[in-house]
């Protein structure tokens, strides 16, 4: 499968995403430059982690106006698969390709740690390689990852199964102590209504090798690769 990883100025984990896809997962992946409008024939577009444009205004607020984002929006509207990781999730929310918003962590501090995620909906292109309720151990590293949305929106997300990942403890319970940023309803990742756009705060690209962070992140990429086939 062909992947495209967008590189905005200030993207940081774009190289990691390319490494994970190409070297760990044997996929075909190319870097896409933010000033270009072409997606190079990618079947899945990845918006990587980082601090696009320094995130001095609001995370993702400027990146959404990049030339390439016009193409990404069109691609998504046509049903193309889009994965936003961390800053990429923030950009997708700013671009209204995903509902809700990501605000400063409850602690007001940046947090880098491994967390447990529960797969809430395994019937999507992004999670189909996992079992429903399966726990994935992935790293997070962000200062603004607290997912928020209006109450009625949250209810709809629940009803439609758009919440794909939740922060949970080791036993799989979505406790307050296991919520690393104060996200509403412990939400770690959401999809759009059509389930072709997915954003998550954890970094699956940093969990694809046993010697570095484990292999739980492979589930996300393998789901997408399988979905496209």
């Amino acid at each position, binding site marked *: 499968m062909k992947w495209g990883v967008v590189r905005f*100025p*200030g993207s940081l984990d774009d190289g990691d995403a390319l490494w994970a896809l190409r070297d760990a997962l044997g996929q075909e992946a190319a870097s896409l430059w933010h000033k270009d409008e072409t997606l190079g024939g990618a079947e899945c577009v990845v918006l990587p*982690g980082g*601090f696009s444009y320094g995130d001095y205004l609001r995370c993702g607020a400027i990146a959404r106006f990049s030339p390439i984002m016009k193409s990404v929006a069109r691609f998504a509207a046509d049903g193309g698969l889009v994965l936003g990781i961390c800053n990429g999730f923030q950009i997708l929310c700013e671009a209204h390709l995903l509902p809700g918003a990501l605000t400063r962590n409850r602690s*007001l*501090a940046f*947090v*880098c740690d491994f967390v447990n995620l529960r797969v809430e909906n395994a019937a999507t292109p992004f999670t189909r390689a996992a079992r429903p309720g399966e726990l994935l151990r992935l790293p997070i*590293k962000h200062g603004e990852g607290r997912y928020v949305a209006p109450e009625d929106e949250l209810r709809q997300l629940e009803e439609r199964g758009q919440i794909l990942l939740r922060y949970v403890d080791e036993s799989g319970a979505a406790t307050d102590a296991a919520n690393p940023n104060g996200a509403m309803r412990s939400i770690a990742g959401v999809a759009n209504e059509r389930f072709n756009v997915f954003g998550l705060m954890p970094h699956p690209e940093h969990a694809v090798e046993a010697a*570095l962070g484990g292999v739980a992140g492979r589930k996300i990429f393998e789901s997408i690769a399988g979905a496209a086939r």
Partner: protein
Amino acid sequence: MSQAPAALPGEPRVDLAAARSHGLTAAEFAAIERLMGRTPTFTELGVFSVMWSEHCSYKSSRKHLQTLPREGPNVIGGPGENAGAIDVGDGWVAVFKIESHNHPSYVEPYQGAATGVGGILRDIFTMGARPIASMDSLKFGAIDHPRTRYLVNGVVGGIGGYGNCVGVPTVAGELMFDPGYNGNILVNAFALGLARREDLQSARARGVGNPVLYVGSATGRDGIHGASLLASAEFDAGSEAKRPTVQVGDPFTEKLLIEACLEAIKTGAIAAIQDMGAAGLTSSSSEMAGRGGLGVELDLDRVPLREANLSPYEILLSESQERMLIVAEHGREAELAAVFERWDLHAVVIGRITGDGRWRARFKGQVVADIPVAAISDDAPLYDRPAAPPAPLRDSSSPRLTTAISRPDPAAALRALLASPNVASRRWVFRQYDSLVLSNTVAGPGGDAAVLRIKGSRRGLALKVDSNPRACAIDPYLGAVATVCEAARNVACAGARPAAITNCLNYGNPERPEIMWQFVRGVAGLRAAARAFATPVISGNVSFYNETEGRAIPPTPTIAIVGTFADVSLNVKHYFSFPGDAIVLVRTAAPSLAASEYADLFGAADDALTPIDLGRERRLLDGLVECAQRRLIRSAHDVSEGGIAVALAEACFNPAAPAGAEIVPDAIDASVAAWFGEGASSVILSLPAENLKAIHEIFAPLEVRSIGRVTAAPRLKIGRQIDEEVAALMRLYEDALPGRLGRHD
């Protein structure tokens, strides 16, 4: 002699008083007039004051630094470049350096620490290496000092704010609280980069007529006299007013600069490159010209400015961040500019290399500075300052208690030590740093040394930064030796062979003989240990004037060591994983309570520091590397603050699930010094029992004691006196800093 440039309208008059207010002495001012053959202009005076500052010229330390071993079979490039480099195999070169940002971080903790990270990263990528890891050594005052919490939050926030946004993982570090730093904290920032050997760059200008390119951020008024007035003077009541001399960091621009510079280097159109650090445009241009034995001419009207009306003095001395100076190959400047423009960065030709050996700056068509390059780059004064031990030997910054106040039982002492701010888990700090970006981190913060893989190769690196100011306060020589031993041991515990050293030597005012004595003894200790371990000192930095109102910090040589793995998959963890494994203590000498955390908490008898036999230390390091290479051990953990008892507890803190340990009665002498003493180089190993014989052979003639075994039941039992639940110890260990510095959940 040159014709004196005319004074600019409104410029202050240049005389001895003006020179003094610039931090220059009467003798130095006289030397400047002699070298110039005339009185300098105000702009020239400013240039001399920064270039001749302690911070830029190393005038008090150079004589001693020259005695450090710098050569080795793996060392690449000569001294004088921006950072040192070593060959790490398969065509890869590791470039690394540590540098202080102490004074800025005390005056403005967030920006001071942030720009410390930014500055050291530029020293790495200016060499053509991609920065792949950072570490920080932090020293704060007592944890209950009213200013400490503010400073810790600011410094940690600044390091994270910059490092996280620039995309370089912070993989290890150290943190200490001691009243000796109440008035002068230490922030020492380390960075390491990787380059292909053929891509290494030089900061030596070449090619008369070659254009000089300014790239990166525009120049503003920030940081003027950061090097001369802030870094090269002690603090006093007026230091708050120096806040404007602290620069402001922009990690986003630095990230663009890293990518653009590495891309530009690939074009082959760069003749020389240097970052604009301390003393900005002045130092970068004059140092590059000086190294090449050439001259340089700058047109200040072309320098991109943040605001109109900067004077030539301000343009030349600004320490605005995220700027680089490039000498381009003639005719290829447009090719380079195109790379920077792609990254939306300024790239402007502001001058050219000349053959006349002069450093000349023009402003509005008029020459405003015209100085022999050598006068500012090479002819800075060189001092052989008097050094004398203080009388009595121990000053007030030595360990405060020499008699025991109360001796808790061993279990209570262990619990107290694990919760002590100098022993407790540093998770509160490193959780605020991205330690994963770039996908090289095999072992991140929290262990003995960080371990990085080198992609596309089996090779890897281990790195650690250490210091031991308490031992240095008692004996600055032995303390420095102990510091090198500890850093090397941490790297060797991870299984890597210690390869080279970078150092940051933090001391008080060198004009005082007792401080100079501490420094000279510290350098001697570093020299002896570096020689014994065949770990050359490839880069470093000296930070003097770390004092407030006449009170100096404890002597603090900070040592970072980088080690190499031929096969990084052989790296060794620091914690127990396999129940039934034998636990073995290997040590070079018997420990002592001198300069120990136990003594700090509970007082101690007036112990002497443990003497160090460098031959035995080397045996320990070599043995650890051999154990890793032969896969004989399952874990290795260095014994440091808190002694053997704390090291055993830490080895039980397996992050996946707590392990247990049972130490047989009398395996360790039932004395406070044996359980909680420090100073002796000791490691705790775990290994399958069948490897015991091999371990004894490898480490002979060192003391090797089989002291117990790893248990599945997560309890720590040491003889008859300690029997604690590991989870409970872990809670004490993990909760201590959040409890003192503020919770983040």
